[in-house]
């Protein structure tokens, strides 16, 4: 079974927001709501500055607090592909999962009331396509693939680079990895 994961190479992100818009259109996300975002962080004092561009989305945690906190089983971890998904018809909109996610990856769909978030574009992946944000990523900063396949782009990227996950200490075990600097894995 595939073990899907995303690798985000921050070095290559150009902060263009193509991913943000593509995701919204692909998934009919209502106005003013988002499944993914881009963080621009600048540190230092003029003229010695450092910029970090990082796109964020649901981490499809292997240890997902959002799923644990869902009272109806609407949120679940797909055992086959590891994606954290939602059975919309089951969701009561109690917002537990929104409160439970340490990454603020969830929102309540303003139009329909269910708790929504990134699905790793499961519907596209099923058809053999890349997630919408990955497909349009101008910087090829986002890459997607199967960790169980040693030849997949994600496996190669993780092998060749040092990577990190966000808020590792929460023990959520994210499946979205970040490459920040040039350099081999530590």
């Amino acid at each position: 079974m595939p073990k899907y994961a995303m690798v985000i190479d921050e070095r290559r992100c150009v902060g263009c927001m193509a991913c943000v818009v593509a995701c919204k259109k692909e998934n009919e996300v209502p106005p003013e709501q988002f499944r993914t975002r881009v963080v621009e962080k600048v540190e230092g004092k003029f003229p010695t500055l450092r910029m970090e561009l990082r796109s964020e989305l649901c981490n499809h945690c292997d240890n997902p607090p959002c799923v644990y906190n869902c009272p109806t089983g609407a949120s679940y971890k797909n055992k086959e592909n590891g994606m954290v998904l939602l059975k919309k018809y089951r969701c009561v909109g109690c917002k537990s999962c929104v409160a439970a996610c340490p990454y603020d990856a969830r929102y309540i769909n303003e139009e329909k009331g269910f708790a929504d978030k990134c699905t790793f574009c499961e519907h596209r992946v099923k058809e053999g396509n890349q997630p919408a944000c990955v497909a349009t990523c101008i910087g090829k900063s986002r890459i997607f693939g199967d960790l169980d396949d040693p030849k997949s782009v994600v496996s190669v990227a993780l092998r060749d680079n040092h990577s990190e996950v966000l808020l590792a200490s929460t023990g959520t075990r994210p499946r979205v990895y970040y490459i920040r600097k040039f350099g081999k894995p530590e």
Partner: protein
Amino acid sequence: MSFEFSRRSFLKTSGLLSAGIVASSLLPDKFLLWAEEQGMIKGRYTPTFCEICFWKCGAIAKVVDGRVMKLEGNPVHPGARGKLCARGNGGTGLLYDPNRLKTPLISTGARGEGKYRKATWDEALSLVADKLTAIKQKYGPEAVAIFTHGTPTDHFLPLLSAYGSPNVGMPSFAQCRGPRDVGLELTFGEGIGSPERLDMVNSKVVVLFGSHLGENMHNSQVQDFAEAVGRGAKFIVIDPRFSTAAGKAHTWLPIKPATDMALMLAWINFLLSEGLYDKEYVAAYANGLEELTAAVKEYTPEWASKETDIPVYQIVETARLLGKNAPAVCIHPGRHTTWYGDDVQRTRCMGILMALLGSWGREGGTFMATKASFPKGAAKPFPEPSKAPLNLGTFPFAGAEGVTQAIRSSTISGAPYPIKGWFVSGTNLLKAIPNQKETLEAIKNLDLLVAVDVMPFDTVMMADVILPECSYLERYDALAVGKGKSLTVSLRQPVIEPLYESKPGWWIAKELAKRLGLGEYFPWNSYEDKIKGQCALWGIDYEELKKVGTITIPNTATPFITPTNPPEFKTASGKIELYSKELKEKGFDPVPRYTKHQQPAKGEFRLIYGRSAVHTFSRTTNNPELHELYPENEVWLNTEKAREMGFSNGDYVTLKNQDGAVSNRIKVKVTERIREDCVYMVHGFGTTSKELKNAFRKGADDQGLITRYAVDPICGGTGMRVNFVRLEKEKNNA
């Protein structure tokens, strides 16, 4: 943050009462969700190309049930490579913008008052035709000028030519690429093209003067940029502002604005004196090395350091980096290059650097355009105007796209002859050309102002007659021929039928031509017929083109100089002109010479501007998909300065320039990312058109503060970074 009771939640709560109604309306919604999850809803896919900016990326539209759900990049299009930028992805926002122009409108009030009545197409077109005929009779056809930008040009420029006027003005010349194209033509005999023929992906070092790639979001170019960054190419970014590109750079040089030429001349001098240039290349292809060497002697790194605020060691280090990595050095010649009025010469400096590094036509530098082309079809020749064009102004090297502000001046002065009609399509002149007062004054002198547009932007709202064009997703346009590495052709075709009563540009042009008695210039029935004819002539399978969107003609790429593929320089001497005789003959410096520009007085800041990655000039500011990402622009102010002046991040201020022009209110972005002597804002905001519900008076308009502009005497480009502003606490937000 405190106890907040969200309005939305309250509404939802009260909505409980109507739970019964909700129940019934949820059923189809549930069904759709289910059907979608089952993969039962499938879209129809139609390729076309994007018009949110001028990169013309191949796009594929997904249509479900007559609604365009999504746009994706066309994998076979070289500008898109399967990807669209945020703006291209948000193209449906234009299509479904509720504020779109829906019917023809005829003004019922004074010009600019914004009072209109709906009209039928027949009525509106006849009115325009009558007025055009009247102007022609009274003043001659040359008295009508066209301002145009983008694909509408392909329909309305022929109309104007058929009508008999040579007076066209596109902001893409005198407000954009003019100086760059002219500077490179004078040096290499040709421009860099659009898309720029840069081989950044293979560069070892890339130099960006301004050129804020990432924010300047030309799709494949930014893809190349990211690729180069990812591959570890070293970027030298020269920008008074810590741009996104600067954030990726090996070296960021926060240059004092308006002094770029000092740095370039010092580099040239250094490369020459250290012998760090490609001697073979220069000997083989270039002219005027001695004159150049002599002319740049005075420009030492020490001198340049004082001019530019860049430490000597950095000037020297970067120059060495260039020399050592030649020829795989990409000097980006910029695109928006109308900065300080000496921009042709600034581009010349870049050209000379490329020549010295031997990077023109070399891997990692620039590549050469395909030599292939499509045959020209027979067409009825346009009438020869009886008066000389006035769109070239007094500028010996003005380009065919015309000098917009020269037409404007003549419209005001009536000299050398009067201009009485403006036909405006696809450009928002009030935002595009500096000094709005002059634009408004010129508009006052007109007998007729017609606007063909999709949205009621500022300039449109000045028009006597407004003709609503449908968006690019609802129409055919001219085939886009790409002359990059290979010869390509792309099709724009409607993905859905035009909404409301809007019509494609070709239809509007043809109908107007009919009414003007110029029908024979538009001899086809539908634009599709015309395209089919062209495809037949060019040997392209139209049905295939319809299916794939873009066809690349095989074996047409000859990108780099090789012994069997020598470069061709279409200059006067047939060589790269380090020293330009042509310029000398017209009384300009044959080798660029540094001119000092005025710097801001105490308390003033130079106003500089640029792009947001999610907007195109003014045209996307009302687009709901993009508006939500960046609803209003901000004025960037250095942290230290902000502290001195008592401004905090997010405060609203107004800007007042040296001539007393005052901006709309704008938020301060307090940041380390900019020098202390300038402020920066994204161009295109602060529209005055009330019809634009999202964009109306959001943010400030940089153009409103650009009352002064420095005209490049060589080509007519309007240097627009020569204004100084003061920040004032917002008085009231009325």
